[in-house]
């Protein structure tokens, strides 16, 4: 008996006739299979890569449609042009922040400007437009000249005219010639308070907060939000006639698109609503010293 090849090795019976030796048949089947699988894998990867660039990704972010209104006397009003903040974490998780927000005292707009020596006409001009600074409305001819003129505006206009020469530009650029406190002192005070609270919020949650301003119907959209639980607040009380209101609310955000948010707004109100997890603090406006 001669030596036999191992059982798992197939013997090529045909003699070698030069050229490249014939491939081992077993190896050939394995290689073909590997090459086939590789081709499928590469094809799949390329398809996925291409699809990733051409297709709109599935919605994995959330949207909140915020609707803010308040009841004052007998009427319910929408709250326009006010900024609200979205802070990562529940009310419990943000408890220290919520406490800081509640403890923050910011006097009223009228008290601030009165303390800075503003005339009654200037305070009324600001209140008429719900303005925190003189920048929020254009200063018109009648505000500068005539019986209803605001004294501060008139003085600033005179200074502006002396330097700028043109009455139209002097009127439009008038805020440049007002003392800083009377120009936007209250707004800046409020902003400093908000910024300090935001810093605290971001340190606590480790995530940047988001903000949005309500439109004239009290509606605002917070879009592209990572799903999770959030605190929604205005951070500093908002003046609404005779009271100011502070909202501290909690909302769970799920992945969904705008059309879902349109159907289900998140309503902030100063009226009790058991469906909404909100702490609403409404206080009468402080009396000026």
């Amino acid at each position, binding site marked *: 008996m001669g030596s036999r090849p191992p059982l798992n090795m197939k013997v090529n019976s045909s003699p070698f006739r030069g050229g490249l030796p014939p491939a081992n048949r077993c190896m050939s089947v394995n290689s073909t299979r590997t090459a086939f699988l*590789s081709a499928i894998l590469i094809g799949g990867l*390329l398809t996925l890569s291409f699809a990733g660039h051409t297709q709109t990704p599935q919605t994995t972010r959330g949207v909140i449609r915020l609707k803010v209104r308040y009841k004052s006397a007998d009427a319910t009003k929408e709250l326009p042009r006010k*900024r609200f903040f979205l802070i990562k974490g529940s009310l419990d998780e943000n408890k220290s922040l919520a406490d800081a927000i509640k403890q923050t005292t910011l006097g009223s707009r009228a008290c601030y400007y009165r303390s800075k020596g503003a005339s009654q006409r200037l305070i009324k001009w600001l209140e008429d437009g719900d303005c925190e600074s003189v920048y*929020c*409305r254009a200063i018109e001819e009648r505000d500068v000249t005539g019986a209803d003129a605001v004294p501060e505006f008139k003085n600033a206009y005179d200074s502006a005219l002396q330097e*700028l020469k043109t009455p139209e530009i002097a009127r439009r650029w008038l805020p*440049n010639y007002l003392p800083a406190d009377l120009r936007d002192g209250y707004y800046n005070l409020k902003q400093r308070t908000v910024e300090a609270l935001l810093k605290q919020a971001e340190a606590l949650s480790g995530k940047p907060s988001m903000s949005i301003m309500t*439109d004239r*119907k009290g509606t605002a959209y917070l*879009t592209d939000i990572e799903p999770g639980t959030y605190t929604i607040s205005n951070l500093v009380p908002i003046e609404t006639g005779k009271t100011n209101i502070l909202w501290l609310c909690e909302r769970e955000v799920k992945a969904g698109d705008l059309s879902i948010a349109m159907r289900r707004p998140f309503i902030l109100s100063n009226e009790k609503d058991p469906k909404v997890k909100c702490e609403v603090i409404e206080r009468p406006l402080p009396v000026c010293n």
Partner: protein
Amino acid sequence: MKRPIIAVLTIAFALAAIVAAQTRRGSRTNKPATQTRLARGAPAKYSAFLHSSDKHKSLACNDCHKIPTVWNAKRDFPDVADFPGHDACVRCHRPQFFSRQAMSGTGPVVCTVCHLRAAPREAARFAFGKPNAGDQSAKPKDERQFTIEFPHDKHQNVIAILQSLRLNPRLLRVSFVPDEKKGDYNNCTVCHRRNDELLSAQPLPAPDSEDQFRKFFKTAPRSHDACFACHWKNQKPVNNDCGGCHKTATTFVPVLMPKRISAKFSHEGGKGEHVMECTTCHINITRAASVRGLTPDVPIAACTTCHKDNKKTTYPKVVTIEEEFAQYKTSNACVYCHAPDVGSKKPPASHDAAAQ
């Protein structure tokens, strides 16, 4: 044995290629444009002025520029409206003006930073703020040497309120004719005005009588006038603090004409019906902290608050999204809002969702 190794290597190579392609795709968009540096001392180097050069960057703006330029010389409001005087250039670049090398040939090329030609009696200059380099007039893009920083959110906080709109209901219309005399209560239209010029630059359908009303989109402020009303002095950044709003860049091309998806939309509305406040539809504007990357997108859901079949009781004449879908089925085109470049495509999933 070798073939499986080759197959594995092929897979690895394919994966590496995909990763590299993805990485390059991302970095390509962020890569800043670079400017070809000319050899030190070469005369041609001084024909192009760069605010971003190390020496120029170290100077304050008013080291060279007079702020404001001679009163009312170029504008109807105080502004930096002209090139600096000769002294500003000569005090550092004397050799580039007066050396023998500079005087040879067509004259000192440094003169052509401001002047059309380098000649002693050449008084004609380029328009200020435009060329700053001899060959720039031929550039197809409106390239600038400064970017603009504008925090929309802060300005919204300060200027925009409801009550002013109520006092002057005409401003409830999103659009307004700039030359009309009326009280300018501050909202978006303080800076953004109607821009009929865009009509000619957009891919438009054939004109029809209805398009006369389709006054298009908004301008962005193109001069300092709007800024200086508040930032001339005292309110930072003030007139001589250019860096408060502008950052040097070798080339910056402002987007003056953003891409329009709903090219046939009119702020005026077909019959003046679009009377909502700007941010009611442009829902992301009040959270935008910069104009960089600002997208004034209007989601279709904003449109379907009125343009929907179930709103017909409130707005009986409104064209609805359902009607447009029905029309698309017969004609393969959505024509009410879109020009053919967009309207001939299949409506996206967001439109289906909005119609439900």
